[in-house]
């Protein structure tokens, strides 16, 4: 339990730092379509997998990777839907709906594909 809490704290701090760093890179890029690529950068993944591999080993990271394949494909599909959703509902509501689309696609696909 204590180990899980330490790991969660490490992931949180690391995740925040990596996301901020990638966001800074995205800020200085143009055009907006290209800087948008960095909105789907593997910042959280890098931060979390680093902690997992150092604290738990490579097997859990391997399993994380399998799940992330599904998550990545769901992200691409959700952002595609986002082009329409954000035009219709603007950024805040549109991006929350994008998260909803992601959940539906990822959980649906994951239930079918992941062992």
């Amino acid at each position, binding site marked *: 339990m204590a180990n899980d809490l330490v790991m969660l704290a490490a992931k949180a701090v690391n995740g925040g730092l990596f996301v901020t760093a990638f966001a800074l890179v995205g800020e200085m890029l143009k055009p907006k379509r290209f800087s*948008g690529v960095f909105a789907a950068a593997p910042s959280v993944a890098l931060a*979390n997998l680093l902690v997992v591999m150092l604290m738990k080993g490579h097997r*859990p990271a391997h399993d994380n990777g399998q799940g992330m394949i599904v998550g990545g494909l769901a992200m691409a599909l959700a952002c595609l839907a986002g082009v329409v959703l954000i035009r219709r509902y603007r950024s805040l509501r549109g991006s929350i709906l994008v998260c909803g689309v*992601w959940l539906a696609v*990822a959980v649906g696909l994951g239930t079918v594909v992941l062992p």
Partner: protein
Amino acid sequence: MSVATRDRAAHERRRHRSHREPLIAAEPGKLRTVKARELAMRFVFGAAVSIVAGLVSISFGDRAGGMFLAFPGILPATLTLIEKKESTTASVHGVSGAVAGGVGLAAFAVVVTVTAGRMSAAAVLGLALAAWVVVSFAGYGLWQGARRLAIRSRRHEPTLPPGHAADVRTTGSGV
């Protein structure tokens, strides 16, 4: 020229300007405009998504937790900031670029799955990041290239001036 034709021409000019933008460019000076509050927001969202992914891993296993490593939890903060600073159109452009990034995330994950356990953590993550860069940048480049080709070919389509023979044929007037 009618109002509708003038509006259409203005819209086409705006669209054609976008294909003259560089495909990829950097403006390091823009970092000076980033506010501490915006960075703090990104940090908090990044930490929150990491905690959610971690809790899902603990509760439902590492594969389920891995899915959430690609959760678009940072998108609302990113896109609302873009909309506030620029426009909703810029925000739409941003999310369209994220499609290529999402495909890159899947490539990142494939590399992690294949290499984890076979090399050091640094090598696994370095190779995975390289895969994300290659796949997402290539995807972005291909899509933008196709888009610009489509704009250019539409631009060079012949447009019929008013009173063209086709109009005359339609109206049946030969004079």
